[in-house]
């Protein structure tokens, strides 16, 4: 923490650079959604944009991994996502199966291909 220090400063920083820059999007959404009903055509586009951003977050978290996740080699992370996807597709489109398979692949892969 550079500009703000101490207990009070830490909370002020949380509000100013953690809460507000994130929450502003939710408030703007409340304003923008006025007068829109559930079947509005523009929502098809809005949902597509939301889905594409979310997909971007997923791919970025996998490829440019944060924190200690970066200690697992990139090919192992990519392989684990692929295995999770295959398990999801093969086992009745179960989110649970996909997550478990992907996690298992990550841990095993990290142990086998430890740098």
């Amino acid at each position, binding site marked *: 923490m550079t500009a*703000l220090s101490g207990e009070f400063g830490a909370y002020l920083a949380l509000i100013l650079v953690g809460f507000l820059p994130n929450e502003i999007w939710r408030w703007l959404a409340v304003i923008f959604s006025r007068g829109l009903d559930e079947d509005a055509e523009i929502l098809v586009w809005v949902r597509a944009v939301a889905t594409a951003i979310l997909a971007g977050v997923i791919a970025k978290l996998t490829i440019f991994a944060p924190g200690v996740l970066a200690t697992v080699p990139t090919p192992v992370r990519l392989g*684990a996502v692929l295995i999770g996807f295959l398990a999801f597709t093969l086992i009745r489109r179960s989110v649970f199966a996909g997550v478990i398979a992907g996690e298992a692949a990550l841990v095993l892969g990290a142990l086998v291909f430890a740098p």
Partner: protein
Amino acid sequence: MSAPDQPMSTLAAFRAGFMATWTSVFAYVLLGNYVGIGALSHDFGFSITWTLVATVLVWAGPAQVILVSTLGAGASLFEVAVAVGLSGVRLLPMVVSMLPMLKRPGLRSWKLVLPAHFTAVSIWVEALRLLPAVPRESRISFLNGLGTGYGVCAVAATLAGYYLAAKMPTLISAALLFLTPLAFLMSTLRNVRMLVDRLALGLGLLLGPLFAYWQVGLDLMWSGIVGGTAAYAVHRVREALR
């Protein structure tokens, strides 16, 4: 639960939402994810109270990871705000596409502020799945109940992660952080039914890292606008040819 066309009392709807938390796979993903975030916050030297307040106020996993790791590493406040703000852009289209499901004639806008705050990826995905079966008059209370349930999970997990941090092996911490991309991917896959959403997902997966690699500023926003618009254009062309 009462029949879909019969309005429930506010409390009953809140309770139904709160109970729906525990049968949702996301509650458990959230647990693991926030254990990871609690541990991260501990490692960067934030106090436990600050960490819990951050979980409740920020209420978005990626934003909190970015906040803790950049602020903790001593980035300037401006840089932190920009990074957090960019990760939050995805919330705008999410909330815009969800709120119309909650609305009814004569509803005051301020009643939507709390449901909007609760909206994060997990709630968005679960709300799109669960809300259609809830009578319209009860949807806001249902969503507030669901959000509160998720909040309880996240706060408990943050607390556990904070105190377990010192004892956690690196590989376990890594596996917990890996829960986010895995669960986001699977649940989005489960929710996509129309071609336009499937295309948007595929394009986003491709464009996100590509734009980041080319160091295009605001890469997530652009991957959303470019990927989402391209997917929508294909959808329109197909509709026109039909």
